[in-house]
């Protein structure tokens, strides 16, 4: 048995060794009828730009892919948003007495550099500030998750405007668990954290089920139920926490930070990467979840059913899929994702949860999930980037407000403009493809004219 194992390993090693040796040899000599590698690389580069073997240039193939066009149109939207931001900066400077031309330049510079801007009133500079970047990552974490929440609902043909409520319910449930179970040892604290996270997600899933069930079983528009459940959640949260022992007496209206009870997200090395900041493993978890959602949507039967239900509910039902189950499950997953965002953000250990105002003002992170999902055209991996960009703009906005007459709402304006243009993404994509189609038609016409001449 052992001998056979060693023989197998030896054979494998031999094979691998020969393959590596062949590869090195191939750099200089033809092997097995294949051209030497530099030639092949050259041919590959050529194929990027010139059509070979009746294949159009590979760059064109890439460009014609739907995904590429989506990315391009999103980038165009971002560009348009920034351009309008610049126009605004100039307009404000024109009408203001305190602002000069170089302020416009500086404001624009900050808008573009965002979290990397390390300058102050006297000088402008760009750099890697670990504290700033780490805190920025903690802001991105919940945004990715609420964005995913909205995106997965969009894929199922639902508009999940209930992310704020689900976010609040997740926060509430996980904070209740994290703060009420005493844990002293590091292991116990880790398990309490895990339990809190799971309870939070389950609470969010249940909360998300409500609009799903209303939509699937009672034929009630999910938007209206989401809005109602948002406000109910906001009130419940304030109700549950007001007067409880979790309220921090030093700052009324806020709860204790979770590290007061020894509970916080595992750092997963992020504290070493960004020393002194709040950065934690939440961002890693969020990105892993985004990948999982992508796999679920694109590589599993369930994901296919969700998308089928989103494309045409009746057709999917006709094809034998359970449309009601899919709607409810989709909303439940959406709720769980939002709740995970809330739980991760407020179990960071340094963040404080203000429970006293939720019954009047719903958390904006929940609503910001909508632009995040829209900018990414509901692609789970795109959501990671669009969340990062929207959080980036928020940071940039607060920095711009350090100048007189500029204020942080310029970033909100830019985000709004970007989303307005994102509505045209289909139009932009069409425009991008018509250009190609025209040139193709020209290609198709040319041979015939040549043959006529001949």
């Amino acid at each position, binding site marked *: 048995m052992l001998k056979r194992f060693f023989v197998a390993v030896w054979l494998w090693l031999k094979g691998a060794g020969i393959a590596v040796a062949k590869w090195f040899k191939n750099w200089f000599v033809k092997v097995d009828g294949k051209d030497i590698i530099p030639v092949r690389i050259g041919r590959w580069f050529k194929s990027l730009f010139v059509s070979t073997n009746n294949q159009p240039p590979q760059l064109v193939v890439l460009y014609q892919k739907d995904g590429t066009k989506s990315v391009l149109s999103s980038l165009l939207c971002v560009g348009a948003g920034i351009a309008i931001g610049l126009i*605004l900066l100039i307009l*404000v400077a024109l009408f*203001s007495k305190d602002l000069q031309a170089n302020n416009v330049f500086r404001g624009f510079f900050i808008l573009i550099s965002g979290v990397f801007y390390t300058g102050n009133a006297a000088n402008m500079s760009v750099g890697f500030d670990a504290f700033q970047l780490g805190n920025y990552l903690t802001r991105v974490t919940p945004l990715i998750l609420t964005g995913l929440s909205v995106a997965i609902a969009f894929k199922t043909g639902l*508009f999940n*405007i209930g992310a704020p409520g689900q976010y609040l319910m997740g926060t509430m449930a996980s904070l209740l668990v994290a703060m009420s179970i005493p844990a002293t040892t590091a292991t116990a604290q880790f398990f309490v954290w895990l339990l809190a996270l799971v309870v939070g997600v389950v609470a969010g899933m249940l909360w998300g089920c409500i609009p799903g069930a*209303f939509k699937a079983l*009672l*034929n*009630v*528009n999910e*938007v*209206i*139920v989401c*809005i*109602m*459940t*948002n*406000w*109910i959640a906001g*009130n*419940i949260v*304030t*109700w549950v926490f*007001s007067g409880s022992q979790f309220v921090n007496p030093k700052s009324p209206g806020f709860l204790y930070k979770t590290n007061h009870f020894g509970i916080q997200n595992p750092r997963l090395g992020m504290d070493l990467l960004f020393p002194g900041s709040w950065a934690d493993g939440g961002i890693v978890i969020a990105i892993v979840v985004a990948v999982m959602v992508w796999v679920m949507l694109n590589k599993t039967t369930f994901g296919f059913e969700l998308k089928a239900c989103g494309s045409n509910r009746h057709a999917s039902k006709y094809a034998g899929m359970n449309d009601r189950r899919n709607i409810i499950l989709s909303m439940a997953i959406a709720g769980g994702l939002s709740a995970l965002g809330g739980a991760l953000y407020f179990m960071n250990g340094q963040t404080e949860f203000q429970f006293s105002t939720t*019954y*009047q*003002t*719903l958390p904006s992170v929940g609503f910001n999930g*909508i*632009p995040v999902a*829209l900018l990414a055209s509901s692609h789970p991996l795109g959501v990671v980037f669009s969340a990062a960009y929207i959080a980036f703009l928020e940071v940039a906005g607060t920095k711009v407000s350090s100048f007189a*007459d500029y*204020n942080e*709402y*310029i970033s*909100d*304006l830019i*985000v*709004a*403009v970007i*989303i*307005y243009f*994102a*509505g*045209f993404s*289909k*139009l932009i994509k069409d425009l991008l493809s018509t250009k190609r189609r025209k040139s193709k038609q020209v290609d198709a016409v040319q041979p015939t004219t040549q043959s006529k001449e001949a």
Partner: protein
Amino acid sequence: MVTLIQSTLTYMIPLMIVALAGVFAERSGIINIALDGMMIIGAFVGALFVYILQDKQFGIHLIIANGQGQWVFLIVMLLAAIAGAVFSLLLSFSAIKLKADQTIGGTALNMLAPAISLFLINMIASRPYLAADLPPWLGEGPSPYQSGTTSWFIIQNEHLKGTVLEPFFSKMYISTYITIILFVVLSVVLYKTSFGLRLRACGEHPQAADSVGINVNRMRYVGTLISGALGGFGGFLYVVYSANGAAGGDVQGAGFLALAIMIFGNWKPKGIALGSLLFGLLKCISVLYNQLDINGDGVALLANIGLPSYFYNILPFLAVLIVLAFTGKKSRAPKAEGIPYDKGMR
């Protein structure tokens, strides 16, 4: 009782007219999720004009002090409506001309409105809100304003106190009457005129409407414009009623509530009136439960039960959900809403 009726009206009126705004857009085939944004723009423009007009050089404070403030109120209401209509063009342009996704466009407008308002408010007032209530007395000598006047928007009619007419004519806003008249007139327009029929046809089957010579896109522009005007108007009313005219780029999600009431009312004026009445009443109870004295024996019944205010806050939302659970099966959105009009489609 008087307080109950009057505060129910103050909560009900803005929601009612904004929900009707939603009907005009959606019945013409445009999903108007941007009601909230239109309200915010209306609120901002209204508050802005009151803020500007109270500047000493316009002498408006003298007009208001003379008790003629209602004219100012009327003009500002009109301006707010115009602002809402202009703002709605952004939605109709993207939805009709560019055939963009209407939910996305609406969401963008919902974000754009508070951003624009707060951006400008911060620039104008150097603080995050514009207060438009009692203008400061800028003249010489003591202020001529009547003492005890909470807001110059309100018509006092002190002499009606104690009569049957009190709940409806004393301490009322002129806008309440205007809104009710507007609501009735527009409902009649929607259901009893050819214009209304054409508008509704565009939301149900635009191709059929086109085949009999109705310009679908123009109808949709008009529907959205009316919607924007009513939304802006309702938004200004909302801040006058709830915050005495102080606008801070926020209407506490009232536009979404109006949207909910529109769906609740099944896209019909009658349902909307009922829905907003129910919602307004419950909302009023949630605010006043502590001092509400229904049978007049001097005991606030609900305060003695000892439930926290949050319970009463939840009630209106819960009630809407429960009613919807029973009526949802019959709910029917306009068939062609959200679908850009394409002549070639069957």
